[in-house]
């Protein structure tokens, strides 16, 4: 199982799309690792530098409808190869969310008030996710715990290390 903890990259906007996460011009790469430098390259947010900010993070916290647009799993792989295995958002686009679980990664939905509380904890916060207990633990100058729900199938995919491992065994 992957590591589901780390410092947080806050992306304060809804509807961040797959083209912003990994632009189409990099879809000609045939290895996941080759995507690493291009993470969030086309995302323009005040104070956000895609060339340095994602390198420190293990977790992304963001707003609604994250990962909308294209079906490109490159948008998940570019996080995976940057050691970001958790995205916490108000909601996700369907294909992006499924791609996360299919890769044994976590797409966690929290209510807007919880997301706002995480944003308020500030950039120094560290997050760790307990899948068994279904809680997000955030530690900064204060501590907070947020409960989430994981569909039992999605949980099995994470435990199996992804959909291919699961399906190759079962079907």
């Amino acid at each position, binding site marked *: 199982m992957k590591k589901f903890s780390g410092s947080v990259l806050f992306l304060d906007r809804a509807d961040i799309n797959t*083209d912003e996460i990994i*632009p189409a011009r990099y879809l000609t790469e*045939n290895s996941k690792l080759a995507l690493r430098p291009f993470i969030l390259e086309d995302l323009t947010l005040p104070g956000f530098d895609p060339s340095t900010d994602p390198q420190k993070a293990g977790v992304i916290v963001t707003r*609604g*409808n994250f990962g909308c647009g294209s*079906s490109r*799993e490159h948008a998940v792989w570019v996080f995976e190869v940057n050691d970001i295995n958790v995205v916490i958002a108000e909601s996700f686009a369907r*294909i992006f969310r499924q791609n996360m679980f*299919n890769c044994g990664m976590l797409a966690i939905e929290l209510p807007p008030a919880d997301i706002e509380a995480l944003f308020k904890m500030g950039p120094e916060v560290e997050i760790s996710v307990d899948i068994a207990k279904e809680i997000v633990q955030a530690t900064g100058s204060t501590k907070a715990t947020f409960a989430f729900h994981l569909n039992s199938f999605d949980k099995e995919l994470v435990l199996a290390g992804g959909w291919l491992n699961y399906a*190759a065994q079962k079907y």
Partner: protein
Amino acid sequence: MGKTIAEKIFAAHRRDNPSGENVVLDLDVVMCHEITTPIAINDLVERGLDKVFDPAKIKAVIDHVTPSKDSKTATQAKILRDWARRHKIIDFFDVGSNGVCHALFPEKGFVRPGYTIIMGDSHTCTHGAFGAFAAGVGTTDLEVGILKGVCSFRLPETMKIHIEGTLPKGVYAKDVILYIIKELTVNGATDKVIEFVGPVVDAMSMEARMTLCNMAIEAGGTCGVCMPDQVTARYLWPFIKDEYPSEEAAVEDFKKWHSDSDARYSSELTFDISQIVPQVTYGFKPDEVKDVTELEGTPVDQVYIGSCTNGRIEDLREAAQVLKGRKLAPGVRGILAPATPLVYTTALDEGIIQIFLAAGFCVTNPTCGACLGMSNGVLAAGEVCASTTNRNFNGRMGKGGMVHLMSPRSAAAAAVQGVITDHRTL
């Protein structure tokens, strides 16, 4: 309690229920292109699982960057090409026979009512126009689809959209779907199937229905779907004539998939489109839509007519009506990418290609081309394109570029005027 078309298709294809919320479906068709499939192929090879569940149910095409533009895209094409040959995938379309997947595969008769279809491409929702459940998926889903012929989905809720009234002159399926997405917003249909019903849909051709369903994903929808009817049967007839004694018999049979009158919907919305005008996007999200009258006069550098949304013969005919006897405005570049070889040859036969050329357009081979800025037609920073494609994300057609989505007729009007124009005034 009745069932929706999606619920009927799910019930008929259920392989497994791994949880109360999830279903694993047997797949009728797995579609593949050269951008999202090669990594799946490489992974299967590395795992010692280089097999396909059924070569007859796999359809593959090189369409995003074709002919290959550099070593990397040549490698992607080669991986797909070698794999198709190795596994005896008959329905593989390479340079010369290839075209935009969501235009090419329906044209070949690969899509039928009641089918389950996946592809590593978000606009796979297009095929719901035939009364199929068709969904875009990532590479891992595609990989499992190739290997095992299954895919998992959450149980779908369905949003029913009634399109009422009559389509005004000069307003097309593209305008209708942009108008609807503006209301739904970019996540208004997330995790939902969008069922399009009503007299406007009934009167639409399959080409127009594909335009409608193609953009379901732009509202977050899993699939857009239309009830299969006589229009569907007429389109499919060359491919199904050995299966049914008559078109009427096919239409009768298709009714088994129709949503029941007492089916349950997560929501129902009605749009009366009798009064709408041509629609155009203005921002970086496909729900940022205005009446063309509000954007008139916006200068454009490039006009792109093509794609899985609007690169079909009807689209070219509409654009050609505007372009006939006219020229591109000074300084404007026009690019036409007929979506498939059949669209191309039909347009040649009808004199449409000549009209585009005489107007000063560059006519490319069938390809996804400029739509996602991967091959030709890429915008420079600060440039603006009037485009018949489906997505106007920041940087989509080239870093720093701006894309205004519109119908082919509106795009042709922008081409000859050099600015966004209400084509009804020409």
